[in-house]
């Protein structure tokens, strides 16, 4: 907590803007990249952070970046698909 200091923090509740889901949220929902979804909030936030730093990550980079988020239901292939879909949609938007 000390390391965070006074920096702004975004949580899963703050991603949605005026009733519109963040592209990463939308992609997780569209792909249904979750079963019990207990880990989903963390995975979405890590994915948002990844895409800010790297808008077009390779599957390997996605795996590496989400290494700290564990999904006991084992939905990893869908998660990678969702992150790639979100990346594509965000790319599309900025064109």
């Amino acid at each position, binding site marked *: 907590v000390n390391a965070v200091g006074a920096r702004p923090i975004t949580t*899963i*509740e703050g991603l949605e803007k005026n009733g519109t889901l963040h592209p990463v*949220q939308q992609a997780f*929902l569209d792909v*249904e990249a979750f*079963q019990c*979804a207990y880990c*989903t*909030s963390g995975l*979405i936030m890590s994915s948002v952070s990844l895409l800010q730093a790297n808008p077009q990550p390779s599957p390997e980079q996605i795996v590496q970046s989400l290494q700290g988020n564990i999904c006991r239901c084992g939905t990893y292939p869908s998660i990678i698909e969702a992150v790639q879909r979100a990346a594509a949609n965000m790319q599309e938007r900025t064109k």
Partner: protein
Amino acid sequence: MSKSGEQILLEPERYEFLALPMHRFALERRDFFKLLGAGIAIIAVAKDLPAQETAPGPKAFHNEELPKEIGAWLHIAEDGTVTGFVGKAEMGQNVRTSLAQTIADELGVTFGNVRMLLGDTALTPFDMGTFGSRTTPTITPLLRRMAAAARQLLLEEASKKWNVPADRLTAGVGKITDPASGRSLRYAELAREDLVARHTAPETPIKPASQWTIAGKPVPKADGRAFVTGSHLYSSDLRPEGMLFG
């Protein structure tokens, strides 16, 4: 774990011998509808549960006292919303989706018309717990029977209104239809009386799997949006009034 090498008494593989959920139902009839809203309620009476299904039915009882031993209930509101009340908890196994599919399929309404109230023991029957993969084999057939009883009750209500034998009417897509005359009544319109029926009727026909149109088919996860917005409440998020923290 057992102390000093004692035998562990749990036999996980014997869960199938555990009794079905039961509930001492304390609500009076009037309070029951105050809680649920007006409409039609189908209740599974414990003594009617599988193994002892001998009572005829579904029997609508208008002003009698409610039975006390209840396993689950189903409610059709005046606006057509169908709610299943079950003591089991949703904890990622997606029973909120699969149980709603079962009700929608058997009752003949759309999946989106059914909501499940799960695990809130202030509103649902008592349940000893959600474990051992028991929800699907115990609750699914129970809800299917209850939905079939609800459908039968709706057919009988329409039959009374039109003075046409119930077996000449059809139920589906949220309404009862009289194929001979083409007229129909929506479930919502038929649910405007506070009717209670017991789930009984082993003879109430339920749809064979070959006729399922919603159950057993992929549907979008119920409440999917709640999971990607952090608004879904897990057991560890619950803070009921008076809860003591260890």
